[in-house]
C-alpha cells in the first residue's frame, strides 16, 4: 500500500488502473478532465484510451467495449451526460458484460458550467446504480467497487463526484496497479443488442427485476450505512456528509448515503427509530424525497420545507446554519465573517495574446450592433468585450444564429464557436443552416486545441490523446461539404486582413464561414514559440485609451499614459490599433 497526496481526479484515475481498466473514452469538461489527462500520459499503458469528439460518441464506444467483455470507463461533466443521454437510457436495457463505469462529474455552484443539474436524477431515470463519494479516499475506493458491481448486475454504473471531490485533495491510500490486458470478444446475441420492440420490452422487465437486489447490495457493500446515537438523526450524502461529520453533536444519529437506489425498507427502519430527521444533500432532493416517502409521522427537515437550499454548493458554514435552524445544533461554531466591500473584482479573462480578443475586436468593428450568438469555451469570456449575446450549450451558437435569422430579426447575425465545440456538435447545426437557407456568418475560433478544460487534443490538433500524430481534419473541407461556398481562413493577429474578410462576408447572402486560425497562446508558449514583446513610447502616447479598451491584461494605464507589462506575448494587435503609432516591438525604434 502506498499513500500519496492526490487531486480527486488523480485518485480516481489511479483506482481505474488498480481495477485493471481496459478501455477509456470521454470528452473533456470541468471538473472531470484530469481523469483521462492522468491516464493518457501513463507510461506502458495496458489499456486503450481516447478523447472522443463528444460524450454520445464516447459512451457508445465504451458501451460497445463493455459488450465485448472488457472493463470500460467513460468520463464527462454533468451536462455531457445530456449529450450521452440517448445511449445511456437504452444501455441500461441492453446491459453490459464487462464493467462499464460512467463518470459524470457534477458542478454545484456552477463554478465552470452552464447549469447545476444533478446526475443522480439521471441514474434514477435510467434505473442504473449511482455512486456518490464524500471524499477523495472514498472516490478512489468506490471506483474499485464500481466495476465488479457493474459486472455482477450487468448494468452500467454511474459514478458521480462533484467539483469538491474532483478538485479537492487528500492523503489517499492506493493499491497496486493491475494489468488489464483482456481481449474483447463480441458474442452475437440479438435479443440483447438489437433493441427492436419485441426485444426491448423483455429487456425493460429484466432491468426492473434487477432493482431490489441492487438496493440490497449497495447496503451490504457499506456505501449506505448508519450509526444510531440518539433520538434525532441526520441523513447526508456526497461532500455534505463530510461537512456534517465534522459538526455532528453527540447524541445525534448519522446516516451516510453514498449510493443509489436506496433500499427503502432499510431506510424506513432507521428513520422510524427517530423523533425527527434532517436531510443534507447538494442540489436535487433525491434522498429527501425517499426519506419523506418512508418517514410516516416522523418530521423531516430539508429542502422541501425551506431548511436547506436547492441551489449552489454546501459549505461547512451553510451546513452548520441548516443544522442550527432545524434544531440539530445549539449554535453554529462559525461567527459570521463578511468580505471587504467594493474591491475591484478579478474575474477570469482572456489571456494576453489570445487570438479570440483580436477576432472579437475585428468582428465588433465590422458588424457593430449585430447579434453575436456564442458557445462554450474560453471565448465565452468575450462577454466582457460585448461580442457574446447568447450561450446555452455545446454547439448551440450556430443553431441559435439560424433560429434568430429565421425568426425575422433584421439585424446581421455573426456567431462564434471553437474548433473543438464545432466538431462536438456544431457541424449538424451548420448543415441545417445551409440546408434551410439562413443568412448568417459563422466564425470558427480555431486554436487547434480544447483549451479551456486544460488543452486536450481533438481531431483538429494533429495528435491523439496519447500523442500519436495523425492528419488533422480539414475544417475548411467540412464546411464546404456542408454546402457553404464562402469559407475563408484568416489570421486574427492581422487586423486589417481579418476586417477585409469580415466586410466581404457581411455583404453576402447565405451562410458564410470564417475560420480564425492561430495557436492558443498557452500551447504556443509551451511549444517554444517566442514573439518579441511590445512597448509603449510614453512620449508618443496621447492617452486616448484605445488600447486599454481592447481589454488585454498586458495593458495598464496610469498618469494618462498606457504601459505594457510583462504578460505581453507579442500578438501585435494593440500596435495595429494605436492611432498615435506609439506602440512598437521592444528594442526597436
Amino acid at each position, binding site marked *: 500500500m502506498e*499513500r*500519496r*497526496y492526490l487531486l480527486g481526479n488523480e485518485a480516481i484515475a489511479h483506482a481505474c488502473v488498480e481495477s485493471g481498466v481496459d478501455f477509456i473514452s470521454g470528452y473533456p469538461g*470541468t*471538473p472531470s*478532465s*484530469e481523469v483521462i489527462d492522468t491516464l493518457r500520459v501513463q507510461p506502458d499503458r495496458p489499456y486503450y484510451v481516447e478523447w472522443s469528439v463528444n460524450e454520445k460518441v464516447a459512451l457508445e464506444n465504451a458501451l460497445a467495449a463493455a459488450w465485448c467483455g472488457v472493463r470500460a470507463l467513460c468520463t464527462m461533466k454533468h451536462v455531457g451526460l445530456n449529450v450521452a443521454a440517448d445511449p445511456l437510457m437504452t444501455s441500461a436495457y441492453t446491459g453490459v458484460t464487462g464493467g462499464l463505469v460512467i463518470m459524470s462529474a457534477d458542478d454545484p455552484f456552477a*463554478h*465552470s458550467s452552464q447549469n447545476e443539474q444533478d446526475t443522480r436524477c439521471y441514474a434514477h431515470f435510467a434505473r442504473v446504480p449511482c455512486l456518490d463519494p464524500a471524499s477523495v479516499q472514498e472516490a478512489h475506493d468506490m471506483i474499485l467497487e464500481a466495476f465488479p458491481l457493474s459486472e455482477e448486475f450487468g448494468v452500467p454504473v454511474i459514478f458521480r463526484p462533484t467539483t*469538491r471531490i474532483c*478538485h*479537492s*485533495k*487528500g*492523503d489517499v491510500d492506493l493499491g497496486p496497479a493491475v494489468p488489464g490486458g483482456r481481449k474483447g470478444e463480441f458474442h452475437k446475441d440479438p435479443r440483447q443488442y438489437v433493441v427492436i420492440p419485441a426485444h426491448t420490452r423483455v429487456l425493460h422487465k429484466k432491468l426492473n427485476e434487477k432493482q431490489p437486489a441492487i438496493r440490497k447490495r449497495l447496503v451490504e457493500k457499506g456505501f449506505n450505512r448508519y450509526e444510531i446515537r440518539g433520538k434525532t438523526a441526520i441523513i447526508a450524502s456526497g*461532500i455534505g456528509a*463530510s*461537512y456534517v*461529520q*465534522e*459538526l455532528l453533536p453527540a447524541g445525534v444519529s448519522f446516516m451516510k448515503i453514498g449510493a443509489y437506489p436506496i433500499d427503502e425498507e432499510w431506510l424506513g427502519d432507521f428513520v422510524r427509530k427517530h423523533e425527527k430527521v434532517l436531510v443534507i444533500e447538494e442540489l436535487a432532493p433525491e434522498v429527501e424525497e425517499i426519506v419523506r416517502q418512508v418517514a410516516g409521522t416522523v418530521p423531516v427537515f430539508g429542502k422541501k420545507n425551506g431548511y436547506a437550499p436547492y441551489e449552489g454548493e454546501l*459549505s*461547512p*458554514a451553510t451546513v452548520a446554519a441548516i443544522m442550527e435552524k432545524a434544531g440539530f445544533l445549539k449554535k453554529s*461554531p*462559525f*461567527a*459570521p*465573517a*463578511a*468580505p*471587504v466591500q*467594493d*474591491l*475591484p*473584482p*478579478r*474575474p*477570469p*479573462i*482572456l*489571456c494576453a495574446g489570445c487570438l479570440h480578443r483580436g477576432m472579437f475586436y475585428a468582428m465588433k468593428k465590422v458588424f457593430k450592433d449585430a447579434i453575436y450568438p456564442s458557445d462554450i469555451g*474560453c471565448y*465565452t*469570456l468575450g462577454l*466582457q468585450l460585448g461580442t457574446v449575446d447568447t450561450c446555452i450549450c455545446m454547439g448551440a451558437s450556430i443553431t441559435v444564429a439560424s433560429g434568430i435569422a429565421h425568426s425575422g430579426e433584421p439585424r446581421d447575425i455573426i456567431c462564434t464557436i471553437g474548433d473543438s465545440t464545432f466538431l462536438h456538435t456544431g457541424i449538424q447545426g451548420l448543415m441545417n443552416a445551409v440546408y434551410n437557407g439562413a443568412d448568417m456568418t459563422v466564425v470558427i475560433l480555431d486554436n487547434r486545441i480544447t483549451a*479551456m*478544460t*486544460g488543452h486536450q487534443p481533438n481531431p483538429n490538433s494533429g495528435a491523439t490523446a496519447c500523442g500519436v500524430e495523425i492528419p488533422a481534419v480539414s475544417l475548411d473541407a467540412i464546411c464546404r461539404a456542408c454546402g457553404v461556398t464562402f469559407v475563408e481562413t484568416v489570421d486574427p493577429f492581422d487586423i486589417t486582413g481579418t476586417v477585409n474578410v469580415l466586410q466581404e462576408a457581411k455583404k453576402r447572402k447565405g451562410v458564410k464561414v470564417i475560420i480564425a486560425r492561430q495557436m492558443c497562446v498557452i500551447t504556443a508558449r509551451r511549444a517554444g514559440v517566442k514573439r518579441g514583446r511590445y512597448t509603449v513610447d510614453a512620449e508618443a502616447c496621447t492617452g486616448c485609451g484605445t488600447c*486599454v*479598451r481592447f*481589454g*488585454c*491584461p498586458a*495593458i*495598464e*494605464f496610469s498618469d494618462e499614459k498606457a504601459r505594457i507589462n510583462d504578460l505581453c506575448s507579442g500578438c501585435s494587435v494593440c500596435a495595429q490599433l494605436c492611432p498615435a503609432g506609439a506602440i512598437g516591438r521592444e528594442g526597436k525604434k
Partner: protein
Amino acid sequence: MSGSYDILIVGIGGQGTILASNILGEACLIENRHIRGAETHGMAQRGGSVESHIRIGGEFGPLITPGQADLLISFDLLEAFRYSHYLKPDGKMVVNNHLVLPTSVFTQKLKAPSEAEIVAELKKHALCLLDADSLAIAAGSPLSANVVMLGAAAGVMPLKPESLLEAVKRLVPKKTVEINAKAFEAGRNAGGTFR
C-alpha cells in the same frame, strides 16, 4: 470540531498556488499527517483570483470557513485584502509585497485601493510582508517566488521546516532544486517577524 491547522493560499491564476499546495501535502505525508485541500481549476484560472484551501491534520471536508483560517499566504496585496475575512482574529498573514491591478480597473475605470491603503488594512492582522519576487530573482529564478513564500511561512506552520524543504526538493523540477532550496532559505530568513 477537528483540530486542523487551516491555511488559505491566494493569488492570481498562474502564480503557482497549486505547487505550493502540493508541497504542503508532501510535507504532511513525510510527517505521516492527514491533509485535505481544495483548489481552483478550469476556466476560473485564466488570470482570475484563485484560492487553495489546505487543512493540515484535516480529516473531513476540504473547505475552510471564513473567519477560521490560521494562516493566509497571499501572492498579491489586493488578493490578501480580498480574502482577509477568512482569517480568525488571531490568524497570521504572509503576504508578497506586490500589487497587480485587475484589468477591470483600467477597462471599467473601477477604483482600487492604493498599496499603502492595503498595507495599512493588512496590518490589523499579524502580518509578515516580504518582497518574494526580488528574493526569488536573487535565488536564481522569478518562478521560485512561491517557494520563498512557503519559506517565510515555515516558522508558523505546524510542520518541521526540514519536512517542508524535503517536500520542495521532491516536487520542483530536478534542474531547479538548488534554486528552490535557496529560495526556501531566503524566505525563512525574511519570515518569522509578524507585526
